[in-house]
């Protein structure tokens, strides 16, 4: 579903992303891990067509992120970190606007269905500025899935959420993956969440992909480590080595 080949991003002399190659299979929930500044958001920005790569290529649902960017956009949904929406518009009005931009001409039914799926119908007519962080996150997610994309990108989806919000979000992500078959690409710092949600992981360090495999294989490979946190630090201590997989 996502194929990345030697993807590179340079800003002058600084290399933000150093030739990463990666495959995310259809139906995967892929957890993209790394320290701050490792290049996770740069990767997501390129895959969501917001940023052009300096080198390499990537396809999403078979479409090239540079030459077929509009086709890519029709097949993805994106929830940026600390998702924000138009505060003075209601949740419904925000969703109506983004649904129309996503190609849904008469979005009423799609909005109703999406809000129901996210259990957010009760605050549809509240202004975004009046919603809690968790509710806002759900509306942010709603705008990303309203057109039933093949791939959903989530950038630090749990950031700023309280424990209840984190649990609810996790359940939604898993349901979305199981019920709708959506492939999910998720940047995260929260290793516990990644362990509970993802089916595959990749670890990025200083712009290099230092590890990628399924979560099951990873747990088998690092059977002496008792948590993903320890596995992560074990992998990431080896920053400049080649990918192990």
């Amino acid at each position, binding site marked *: 579903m996502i194929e990345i080949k030697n993807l590179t991003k340079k800003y002058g002399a600084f290399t933000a992303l150093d030739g990463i190659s990666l495959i995310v299979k259809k139906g995967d929930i892929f957890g993209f891990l790394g320290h701050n500044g490792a290049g996770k958001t740069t990767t997501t920005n390129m895959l969501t067509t*917001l940023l052009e790569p300096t080198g390499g290529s990537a396809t999403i649902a078979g479409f090239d992120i540079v030459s077929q960017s509009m086709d890519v*956009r*029709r097949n993805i949904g994106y929830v940026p970190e600390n998702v924000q929406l138009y505060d003075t518009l209601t949740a419904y009005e925000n969703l109506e606007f983004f649904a129309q*931009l996503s190609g849904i001409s008469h979005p009423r039914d799609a909005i109703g269905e999406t809000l129901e799926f996210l259990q957010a119908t009760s605050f549809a007519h509240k202004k975004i500025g009046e919603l809690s962080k968790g509710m806002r996150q759900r509306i*942010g997610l709603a705008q990303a899935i309203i057109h039933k994309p093949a791939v959903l990108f989530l950038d630090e989806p749990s950031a700023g959420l309280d424990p209840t919000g984190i649990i609810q979000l996790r359940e939604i992500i898993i349901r979305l993956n199981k019920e709708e078959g959506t492939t999910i690409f998720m940047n995260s710092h929260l290793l516990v969440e990644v362990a509970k949600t993802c089916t595959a992981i990749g670890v990025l360090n200083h712009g290099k992909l230092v590890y990628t495999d399924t979560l099951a294989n990873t747990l088998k490979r690092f059977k002496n480590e008792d948590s993903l946190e320890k596995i992560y630090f074990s992998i990431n201590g080896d920053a400049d080595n080649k990918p192990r997989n």
Partner: protein
Amino acid sequence: MVMPIINQGIRLANKDLKLLMKENTFIIILLIFLLMSLASMYISWSSQHMVLQVYGEASKQLMEVGKPLPPYPFASTPPLSIMKNMIIYIVLIGALLAITLGHFIAVNDRRAGVIRILFSKSFSKEDFFIGKILASTEMLFAALLSSMIIYAVSMALISGMPPSLFLGIIAFYAVSFVYLAGFAYIGIFFGLNADNSSKAILLPLILWIIITFALPEFGSALYPTSSLNPVLPDTSVLDSPILKAFHSIAYPLSISEQYKEATATVLGLQTTGTNMPPYPQGSRMLILFAWFFGTLGLSYHAVRNFDAAQGDDYE
């Protein structure tokens, strides 16, 4: 499903209009335009009314003593001279409102932090440009139309309003639209280019000061206070070769002077301008159109170079 490009632009413009209405920004701008029109109309009418009262009194007294009556004071005054204050209100207040409008329309998505979401949809930079231009044009058009209706109704009540006068009013507002749209596009340009709200609003204001006060001073040796007159006084820039050289460069760039001269001609007012060879009316309109399309091009350039990945970084 491929959607026509214009639809996405219209959707963005509709959202911008909805936001400006909800935040009361448009209502405030509209009210200021309406107050400005009423004030301009009242000031012109009351000053004429006062002169006519004095004239009436004087005529009565002169008739009583059998002396000849002086000519009617407004015999050679064009009927649309009642709108002359509006010229300067447009230059001073209208341009600032247009900058504010363009600024709000440009930055509302950035302030909301939704730029990355917008550009992850099947939504191009051309859609974004069309949406922003449509929204600012519609708002400006609505404000000027309201002001025009006030003038047309008032003129109809005062003087019966022959159709030729109505055409003059329409021409005045059409020229004003071209002038103000340029400022709205400047507001959009800086709103998209600046990384914070202080720069985004201060830079176009500095440009407005240069256009409204500095260029007329260099271009026609006008003192800043002279710029506040709707019709330019005579100046003597030819006396100095240096000022003459400045004039030839700065005068065409002095958009506010071009606007004042063009609208004064449209309203049938006497345009004295500078004592340099007069510019034909056509060239003034060409300069105003160059301003309109130049600023439109600038805002397109701002959209083309806008970094969608960093677009939400705005304070």
